């Protein structure tokens, strides 16, 4: 049985906010393969192409047959808990702040023995399931939970350090006017968010989604226009110290490329909203969130960028849009590195075409907003950082990994 998460307390004004520290982040090049798997939510280990031996910890030569072809393959994550301990003392500051801390050794069905963070309700001899999660330093760690999860397992305090669970956290959704904005607000509410703030610009333009959000309990609307530095600064001065999860749902899609539709104004709007908008948000909300990365079990934990899958490969039908998304993606990587100092993680959610008016001419499959919002919540709960949503985005990720030139040639106008 997992101890229920204590509800957030009002801040004691005379108590110093716990400063963010990171768990040890020193990893070998081989071990970064684990990070790549954890980032996308896979449980994969090096598996020898010659003899099939599953390797752990990561290495460059097979521990059995000395083969050097060790591709990452999804493996059975289950095993038996061979030993457990609860640390009451740690040499590193991050864990020193958080002891007692539970660890275990898991004998995997796939072969290796694995040292893992251990959920509260696992006992020696139990069947457990391992997952790879990113810790607050952004590196992959093994995490053991009961094979059959018990009630409120998401409340496990150690698990909470590895996830970005919205439960009892305050969320800001930037650009709540869209259908996805509404779906996100609903999904965060279902996931137990403590408060939801929704920013929206150009208030003279009506939006059915915004009206639906206005009718929700526990949701507060704020004026926010990411193209207006004053507006972003103003809202950050009001909410900066409260936001624990920021979702940048800025979205401005116009069809057209560079040769067939050279339009500086449209292209600049795209850049202003997707790239400069993110920059304005980062510069104003980033510092406050980073400073609160360790502020109790409910501190700031995540920054979500809803990006297009075409941020990774240009779709000439939406050519300048894709380029502005690529700029935003690059900036998000910068943001990820900078926010790491506070243990605040950056989740990039790559969407395929949404089922909206701007994709009217795009054939299916198209994404329903509820599905996109649901996937984002689940990625937060599981601590991923790169999320491909829907068949199109997944296919792009796969084809990019396989042969980037092939997909560059094949994306058609």
């Amino acid at each position, binding site marked *: 049985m997992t101890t229920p998460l204590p509800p957030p307390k009002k801040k004691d004004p005379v108590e110093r906010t716990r400063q963010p520290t990171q*768990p*040890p*982040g*020193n*990893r*070998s090049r*081989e*071990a970064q393969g*684990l990070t790549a798997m954890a980032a996308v939510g896979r449980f994969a280990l090096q598996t020898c192409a010659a003899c099939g031996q599953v390797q*752990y*910890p*990561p290495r460059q030569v097979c*521990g059995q047959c000395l083969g050097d072809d060790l591709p990452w393959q999804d493996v059975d994550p289950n095993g038996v808990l*061979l*030993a*457990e*301990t*609860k*640390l*009451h*003392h*740690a*040499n*590193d500051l*991050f*864990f020193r702040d958080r*002891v007692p*801390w539970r*660890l*275990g*050794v898991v*004998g995997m069905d796939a072969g290796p*023995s*694995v*040292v*893992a*963070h251990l959920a509260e309700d696992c006992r*020696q*001899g139990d069947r457990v399931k391992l997952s790879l999660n990113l*810790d607050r*330093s952004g*590196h992959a*760690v*093994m995490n053991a939970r009961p094979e059959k999860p018990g009630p409120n397992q998401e409340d496990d305090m150690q698990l909470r350090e590895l996830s970005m669970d919205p439960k009892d956290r305050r969320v800001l959704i930037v650009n709540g006017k869209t259908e996805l904005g509404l779906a996100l607000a609903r999904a965060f509410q279902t996931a137990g968010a403590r408060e939801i703030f929704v920013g929206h610009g150009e208030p003279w333009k009506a939006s059915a989604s915004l009206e639906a959000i206005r009718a929700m309990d526990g949701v507060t609307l704020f004026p926010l226009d990411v193209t207006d530095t004053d507006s972003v600064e103003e809202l950050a001065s009001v909410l900066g110290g409260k936001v624990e999860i920021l979702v940048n749902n800025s979205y401005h899609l116009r069809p057209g490329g560079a040769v067939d539709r050279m339009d500086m104004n449209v292209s600049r709007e795209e850049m202003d909203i997707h790239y400069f908008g993110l920059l304005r948000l980062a510069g104003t909300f980033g510092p406050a969130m980073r400073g609160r990365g360790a502020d109790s079990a409910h501190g700031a934990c995540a920054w979500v960028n809803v990006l297009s899958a075409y941020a990774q490969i240009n779709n000439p039908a939406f050519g300048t849009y894709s380029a502005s998304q690529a700029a935003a993606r690059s900036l998000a990587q910068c943001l990820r590195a900078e926010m790491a100092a506070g243990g605040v993680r950056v989740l990039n959610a790559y969407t395929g075409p949404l089922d909206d008016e701007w994709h009217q001419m795009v054939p299916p499959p198209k994404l329903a907003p509820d599905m996109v919002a649901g996937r984002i919540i689940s990625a937060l709960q599981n601590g991923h950082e790169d999320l491909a949503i829907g068949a199109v985005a997944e296919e792009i990720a796969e084809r990019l990994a396989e042969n980037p030139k092939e997909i560059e040639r094949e994306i058609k106008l």
Partner: protein
Amino acid sequence: MARTGSARLGYEGVAVCVPVTIPYSRYSLRSAHWFCGRALAELIKGAGLAKNDVDGFCIASFTLAPDSAVGLTQHLGVSPRWLDHIPMGGASGAVALRRAARAVQAGDADIVACIAGDTNHVDSFRNTIASFSQFANDAVYPYGSGGPNASFAFLTDHYMREFGATKADFGKLCVAQRDNALATPHAMMKRPLSLDDYLNARPIADPLGLFDCVMPCAGAEAFLVMSADRAKSLELPFARILSTIERHNAFPDDPIQIRAGWAMDVDDFYDHAGVGPEEMDLVQAYDDYPVICFMQIEDLGFCGKGGAAEFVRAHDLTAAGDFPFNTSGGQLSVGQAGAAGGSLGLVETIRQLTDQCLGRVVDNARHGLASCFGMINYDRGLCTSAAILARGDR
């Protein structure tokens, strides 16, 4: 488990002498070079030699970095013709001994100084464990950064459940060692320890409490290896070597460590020595945590696997008892001076067999066993070594 291959040579004509300890301190501003240098000074003073009479060095240290034994030669102004640096931490003592003995037998060196020393600055222990090995960096330290406490907590937890050992069994061993330590001048822990103290200690990493864990400190242990003839001419009391073993990464398929390399080599060990476990008058086992003592008692043939708890219940482990064990107090009471922990038991064995005890004396000791263990590279200790010494003729 039988050894394969041709019969090994014995260690006839080799002497082990001049046991030296540079007194321990919790923290030190001195460098590892200082501890090694002081050890060499004590060795030549004790042997009545000039510095350059020592023509071989075998060094073990974690904190010499960025130097190795090579840098140390210039630092100490020596010009040896035989030099070794053993990166085996807690297993370095008996490994240094067997390397040095063969060098002396072969004539590659006349007098080898085996020195293990480390300093302990504030924060050097954290730095050592934070970059201990690639596997530890990648797959252990990020998990709570508990260092060896966490690793031995796993082994202890598993061992207790597998074999029914209790906290009180480990406590009996720790209490006996503390009793031994009370007479050792350089022991860091000199307050008497009761079983209640042990059982009620502050938890460190369940099931380990405060008195299950060694205290990292600064210090050095050293001894000389030379021919028996040379020792006699220098009028040095010495011990003879009956056998030695070493083994690395034994039993890799065990999902969690319940035994170590000694179990692979134990039959050969006693065959080669020509004496059995029942003839050991004292045993110095590697003891950074009590569970590894239990494994050594089993793997070195004093009882069967899983029998150590029963064995400890049935015996008195103090120097005056029927199973004199870690007679100086061991690392658990003297302290763990880094790699010197791997020579502490060997140096104490030499003292007991050459009548140079600093503390408790085991009466009429003729044979002693010193066993070493080291290097938790990932989830288990990889290196084991051991030596059986006998009282030398004068």
